[in-house]
């Protein structure tokens, strides 16, 4: 038995495995495959103040060891969320975190304020890195001044655990991590998708209705791992690592690089019970290597 518990700000997580936003719906969709209470937490779908229809179909293209998506934050808005989804989420025996999105700082702030009041949501993940919307999203996450402004504004109204989700589409991701830390975020999560594109040579057209989209899956793991390693050395707040994790070994690599916790995203499309399999795999690894807790291996490659 190894101790898998980890802490992020004031929150204790049963284990370091969290389902990533936009890849686990509201959790219920995966309940046939695993017991959500065996996970560290789930981060539900990207949510906005107003309902959004998202981008036109086609929104998806398969790529080498990965996929592009251009969903564009389709969701029913916070009113619907509060009334119809929150009551269900409130019953889950795992941390439920909401991924917060906006076109403007005001929208981010208003949404965060509303979520601050929902007692069963102990944390939000501020998404300043969505590449699939014209306004907001990645624009905040790729400009240091805008990032600082939106994080500071949300921090003022949001009193629980604030996680900032960073974009990999930047020259120096540690700059954004330091800004997050400086503005009082309890943690950063990285990476969101890499901006990519696919073309169908036979039709001579882009495969996505939006031309560009977000690349996820194992293809991006080397880049994500590098960024997690860089950020873990640059800030003291916990780093939540993700990007291409397919199994426990991948998750462990992120932890060795310095991640306190990990998120699993695209893999859920291929193996809808991967979340709990990864929890079990991490435990098995620790036992085999004779570590009594996951914290013993966090960032171990940086220790000497």
């Amino acid at each position, binding site marked *: 038995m190894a101790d898998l518990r980890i802490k992020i700000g004031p929150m204790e997580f049963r284990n370091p495995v969290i389902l990533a936003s936009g890849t686990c719906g509201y959790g219920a969709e*995966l309940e046939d*495959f695993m017991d959500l209470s065996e996970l560290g937490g789930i981060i539900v779908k990207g949510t906005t103040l107003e309902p959004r229809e998202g981008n036109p*179909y086609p929104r998806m293209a398969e790529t080498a060891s990965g996929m592009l998506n251009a*969903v564009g934050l389709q969701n029913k808005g916070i009113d619907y969320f509060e009334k119809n989804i929150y009551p269900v989420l409130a019953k889950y025996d795992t941390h439920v975190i909401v991924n917060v999105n906006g076109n403007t700082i005001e929208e981010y702030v208003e949404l965060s304020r509303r979520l601050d009041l929902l007692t069963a949501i102990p944390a939000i993940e501020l998404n300043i890195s969505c590449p699939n919307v014209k306004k907001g999203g990645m624009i905040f996450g790729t400009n240091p001044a805008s990032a600082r402004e939106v994080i500071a504004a949300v921090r003022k109204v949001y009193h629980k655990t604030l996680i900032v989700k960073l974009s990999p589409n930047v020259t120096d991701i540690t700059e954004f991590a330091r800004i997050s830390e400086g503005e009082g975020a309890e943690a950063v999560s990285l990476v969101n998708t890499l901006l990519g594109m696919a073309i169908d040579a036979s039709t001579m057209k882009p495969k996505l209705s939006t031309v560009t989209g977000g690349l996820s899956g194992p293809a991006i793991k080397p880049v994500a791992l590098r960024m997690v390693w860089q950020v873990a050395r640059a800030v003291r707040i916990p780093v939540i690592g993700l990007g291409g994790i397919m199994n426990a070994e991948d998750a462990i690599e992120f932890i060795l690089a310095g991640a306190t916790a990990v998120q699993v995203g695209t893999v859920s*499309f*291929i193996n*809808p019970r991967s979340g709990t399999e990864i929890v079990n795999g991490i435990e098995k690894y620790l036992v085999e290597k004779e570590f009594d807790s996951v914290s013993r291996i966090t960032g171990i490659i940086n220790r000497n």
Partner: protein
Amino acid sequence: MKKRIEDLTVTGNSRLAESFFVIKVYSSEGLPEIKPGQFVQALVTESPSTFLRRPLSVHDVDPATNTISLLIQTAGPGTERLSRLTPGEKLNLVYPLGNSFTLPAKGERVLLTGGGCGMAPLLYLGRKISESGVQPHFALGFRNRSRILSHKEFTSLGPVYLSTEDGSEGHRGFVTDIPEFRNEPWDRVYCCGPEPMMKAVAALCRSREIFCEVSLENLMACGLGICLCCVVPTTSGNLCSCTDGPVFNVNDLKWQTSG
């Protein structure tokens, strides 16, 4: 009906025609209830360019032997790999997924129409309709005589009308050109096939106010309603074709705008 992820065992793989084949897989756990129109998400191993699962309609179910049939057309590397499955190999499925066709009421006149791999869901649908005491009729369309798939099993359930684009067998033209389709007073039409075929069928049914359900084949990543990639514009906004579909009543689709 709980969804599950399971390694099934391939018990058969038979070629129907150039690039079409039927795979049979056996569940040692015992099959769950599967409704006509539902699909599976198949994991393709050993195909380096196939990252995601592949959605495939349930072609037939034999509860007695706990066997599912899949009718597959080779379209690319994923289906190509599936075409080489041999008995004894495992096929990992996430299933059963999606909604289902609405069964007819007693006494209704129903036509099941499709072409190519769109025939896949129609056999099981026909079987269920037949079991419910209604006689299914089938209208199947093909490019030409050499592309016609064996349809013995359809024939055993009800009358089959054929069309080929070049008239080399059955009626010349598309399924919508088949006289029985145009002239008989159908209460319900079910369709699965290439998009142009489904749109033509939908247009015909609308003009004659016939209840019509189609099974869409939108690109899918998850099949579980968690990626929101498979959306289709409907009168109630963008819906997931993997959970709210793949079967839609054509009156709910905004086809006029999407293409």
